[in-house]
């Protein structure tokens, strides 16, 4: 390929990358139910964003746990927030503990994990999608034992 034909092509590719980088990416952090599972477990697909694969995967896992705690996952075993009716205020009251849980302790509650191909150039769609099987019973028990949520009953 001659330089005079290749140059405009290279410039246009670089411009495309440049322009697309200037767009404001839409981070949804969505988490949806993957498939129905037996009681005590939860199968979800979570979206993650990041410049590197491990960053986006970690972001996906964190989004999944944040959604389970604060919003619940529609049609799943946990369709209501795990933190209860007043999830936002419960989160605020236990912010340090829950931030640490989401940041550092999620591995203990993940039974299975499958990461999608890393999509570096995608802006408005997630960089990674993470399929997770979460040990919901253990997570609930962990929150109960640490006084974040009440045990079953009054």
């Amino acid at each position, binding site marked *: 390929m001659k330089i005079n034909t290749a140059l405009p092509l290279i410039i246009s590719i670089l411009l495309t990358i440049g322009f697309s980088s200037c767009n404001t990416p839409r981070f949804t952090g969505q988490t949806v139910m993957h498939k129905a599972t037996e009681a005590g477990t939860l199968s979800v697909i979570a979206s993650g964003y990041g410049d590197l694969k491990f960053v986006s995967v970690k972001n996906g896992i964190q989004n999944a746990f944040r959604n389970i705690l604060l919003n619940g996952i529609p049609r799943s075993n946990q369709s209501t927030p795990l933190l209860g009716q007043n999830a936002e205020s419960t989160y605020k009251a236990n912010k340090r503990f829950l931030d640490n849980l989401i940041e550092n302790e999620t591995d203990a509650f993940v039974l299975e994990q499958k990461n999608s191909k890393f999509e570096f150039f995608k802006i408005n769609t997630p960089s990674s999608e993470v399929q997770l099987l979460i040990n919901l019973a253990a997570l609930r028990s962990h929150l109960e034992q640490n006084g974040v949520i009440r045990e*079953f009953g009054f």
Partner: protein
Amino acid sequence: MKNIILYICVIMLSTHMTAQEETVAKIQPKIMVIPYTSVDKSIADELKNNDLARLAISNVKEAFDKRNFPTVDLAAKLKLLQNDRVMELENQVSIKQELIELSGADMYIETETTINRSSGGNSVTIILSAYDAYTGISLANKSAVSPRFYTESFEKLVDKAVGEMTDDFMNTLQMRFDDINENGRMLAMNISFSEDSEYDMDYEFEDLDMLSDKIEDWLESNSKGAYYHIQGVTATKMIIDEMRVPLKTENGQNFRVSKFIQKFRKFLRTLDIDSSRDLQGGRIFITIQ
């Protein structure tokens, strides 16, 4: 120096009180899981003849066990009661209510299983409904349909359907419990008059208040958050189908319904009215003499 000693005493006393409050465990509700029955079927027959209902009940009970919450066993209760009326086929609806009352259950969960047959395969539908035994208020509902398979092994379909729905059902129930914890438990109260009573609900006092007005005022100031609902008032009866009372007293003890009745009867006494009472769990019957 005196002040310091007094200060230390106050701190020690408050610490002791807090510790005492924490040691008083909340009385948990008794829950019984029963099969759904139509008007012409008895619970005992349904339990004996419907394998799927038994399996579904067992699975629901297992879900409670996993949350460390024991349930009242229906089969054991039936055997214990040895109540011939439970076995009778007539008037099953009232017998169901009687069984719930005799078992002492505060809440009961009805489990309905239906087999669906079609050319595309067979499936089962499960409906779980939780009720407050005294007020009849619905606490949680959940239904699920198993996937369709060309199988006659309905046990596996029930197992799968119940397994996939119990977590969410329990979560909904827990949300109700949270609400009760915050806003108080539910009671129901019937106030009636003995045949030879000189009073009725329209009896007028010197301040022109009727007896029903006085009772309503009392309920307003003695129910938690002034939450009470009067189903109806006639000259001879007042039915309060729902009112809220706290789970714990101000000093951290469990709230006793008997104390609540005692307080109400004392209030009636201030109006120069004698009364008798019956108590069935959370349902109160007051008879004004």
